[in-house]
């Protein structure tokens, strides 16, 4: 036992002390934030500005097509397909000559316009047409708008009835949690699985394996490596957790004090400000309250607990297989054909997960969340939708037990492959041979 802990320590420390580990741990959240910010910026900056000249010879619209953001409509005199460019317009919209103006509109431009822009032009023209028709029918636009607004419910709140407990549920949040944890497990399983495989391969190609297994059992060496690298993964999650909490605390410190006070009052009074309309909470306070309220609807201890379990379970399930593959290969090239059968189920479960996060009740999702090779990702996708509402206790417990049993089995099997493979050189091993080693006696 103490030897496993020695191996574990070496594996853990040599990786955690490594500069790349520290950098990736610190930079990944920043990169993530940067990526979102960058994508947002690009989507804003990348919009095209379009000025459209409208050839409305009968003056049907009375210059009444409203500009929409980057699409600007103007109604100049004497504009046609020949001169709109020289007058400085990007495009020319030709209104048909028919009486009800519902015929074919034509847009003429030098470059083809983007899909978004075309959609905006179409919407603006539709709105203008509707306005004209309402006017002709004697309906005021403003009147209609106020009726529209009055007839809209403020929100649809979902409440789950489970026995005597009823709790608010939040589909958006569940989706986010499910998808996020699914992706995290997917990435880490591949990342740490491959890391383990390389570690095993390194020991084999450096020819240290035989030196070490003359002191410890091969199984102990494999187990020490698996646990050590798993601990590296947990450390990374822990540091990310701390980083996220730290960053959000930092963000909160930039929020003005009175806003925070308002948020607190909102929290105490269940979302409404006391004293009727006398005191209005600011928009910011409302937003923060909403965010906090939404986050509080999730069962965090359960989700975090399950996340750690499924990360470890999934990691242990696949890691031992990766270790087995690493033990029979001497170079990355040669390992490729052997890793495919291990990575395929991971990728497959990822696809099922993206589906399960939308339809957590589908039979595929339910079965995939119980079957061990896909359960880590798929169960995490479903669990945020609620236990025992969406995921029944039977499903959760059988999924957990099956995963535990399976990783014990794969570890045992991998141990036997590893024991033989790690000391074998200069021979190309197939999955068939590995299976033979795994199931032969002694």
């Amino acid at each position, binding site marked *: 036992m103490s030897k496993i802990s*020695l191996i574990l320590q070496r594996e853990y420390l040599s990786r955690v002390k490594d500069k790349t580990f520290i950098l990736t741990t610190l930079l990944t959240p920043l990169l993530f934030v940067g990526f979102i910010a960058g994508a947002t910026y690009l989507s804003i900056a990348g919009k095209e500005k379009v000025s459209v000249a409208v050839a409305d010879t009968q003056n049907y619209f009375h210059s009444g097509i409203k500009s929409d953001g980057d699409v600007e409509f103007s109604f100049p005199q004497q504009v046609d397909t020949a001169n709109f460019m020289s007058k400085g317009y990007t495009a020319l919209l030709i209104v048909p000559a028919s009486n009800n103006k519902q015929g074919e509109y034509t847009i003429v431009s030098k470059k083809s316009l983007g899909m978004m822009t075309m959609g905006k032009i179409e919407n603006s023209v539709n709105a203008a047409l509707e306005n004209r028709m309402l006017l002709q029918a004697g309906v005021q636009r403003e009147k209609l708008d106020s009726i529209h607004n009055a007839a809209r419910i403020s929100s649809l709140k979902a409440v789950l009835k489970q026995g005597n407990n009823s709790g608010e549920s939040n589909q958006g949040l569940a989706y986010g949690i499910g998808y996020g944890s699914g992706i995290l497990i997917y990435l880490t399983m591949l990342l740490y699985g491959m890391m383990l495989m390389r570690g095993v391969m390194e020991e084999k190609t450096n*020819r*240290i394996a*035989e*030196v070490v297994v*003359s*002191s410890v059992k*091969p199984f102990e060496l494999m187990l020490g490596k698996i646990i050590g690298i798993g601990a590296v993964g947990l450390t990374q999650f822990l540091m990310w957790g701390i980083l996220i909490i730290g960053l959000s605390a930092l963000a909160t410190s930039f929020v003005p004090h009175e806003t925070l006070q308002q948020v607190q009052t909102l929290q105490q009074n269940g979302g409404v400000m006391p004293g009727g309309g006398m005191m209005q909470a600011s928009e910011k306070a409302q937003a923060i309250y909403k965010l906090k309220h939404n986050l509080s609807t999730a069962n965090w201890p359960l989700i975090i607990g399950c996340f750690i379990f499924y990360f470890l379970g999934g990691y242990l399930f696949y890691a031992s297989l990766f270790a087995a593959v690493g033990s029979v290969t001497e170079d990355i090239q040669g390992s490729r054909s052997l890793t495919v059968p291990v990575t395929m189920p991971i990728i497959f479960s990822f696809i099922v997960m993206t589906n399960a996060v939308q339809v957590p009740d589908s039979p595929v999702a339910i079965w995939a969340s119980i079957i061990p090779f896909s359960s880590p990702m798929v169960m995490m996708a479903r669990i945020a939708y609620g236990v025992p509402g969406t995921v029944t206790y039977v499903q959760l417990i059988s999924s957990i037990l099956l995963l535990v049993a399976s990783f014990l089995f794969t570890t045992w099997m991998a141990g036997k492959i590893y024991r033989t493979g790690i000391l074998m050189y200069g021979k190309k091993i197939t999955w068939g041979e590995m299976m033979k080693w795994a199931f032969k006696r002694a």
Partner: protein
Amino acid sequence: MALLELQGLKKYYATQKAVDDISFSIEQGSIFGLLGPNGAGKTTLLRMITGIFYPDEGKILFNGQPFNAASDARYIGYMPEERGLYKKMKIGEQALYLAQLKGLSKAEAMEKIKYWFRRLEMESWWNKKVEDLSKGMSQKLQFVTTVLHEPKLVILDEPFSGLDPVNAGLIKDEIFNLAKQGATIIFSTHRMEQVEEICDKIVLVNLGKKILDGGVNQIKQQFKENKFHLQLGSAVQTPQHAAFTAKAVSPKQLEVSISDGYKSNDVLQYFIQQDITIESFHEILPSLNDIFIREVEGTKAITRAFQPVQ
């Protein structure tokens, strides 16, 4: 007392009998040569002795007790033929790690590492990485990590490969030293001149079977062919005699094989009668190399041999 005793050890693989009923014993404090061509089963045998493999059949007694890999690993130092170190790890940490894996406490290990590093002038290496060492240097480090925990049984598989004569001499001295202090050494190689120089006793294996077992001199005696070397005072014609057949090496030197039923004195008598001065007369013992080649040749075991399990 025998430190290690093997009794009827067998290990069969799917395609070959790697070790097929081998027994021998090794006295404490001796330097024991395990010889055999490539693929003879030496490595498999050593892996069973170190507890890496379990024998299919047979018994290993270590210090009189049945061998237990988990508890006896502490008393064995194994330097395999396929050896190496963690390339990215610092040398000091590496030695410490390997010693701790053998069951030494950190303090104990540090003390021993300091002793050996000083002894082999490796003190300045502590913070270097293995990838910065030359092959010879890393061999030296490998040797130190093998003997650091003062094993009762040191197993060295081709320990001199990759070492220059100076370092090879250094390691050889350390091997003698260890034996003097009571350690038992198994030395596996197919370099016969090293065996003659170092080993007290040898075992020759081929095709998984033991062919020879005994002291180096005893085996040489066993394989002698009654050949003698004669240095004469004057040049002679190659003589013809019933007692021996002679072959001229040079005009004044003869190699004689004594025929069955005759003794060396018959040869001497002939030359004395002829009044030819005999300057020297000594027996030619076969070298281990000759014995090795003679015993192994014809079995087609120079490369890894495959034979079906019956």
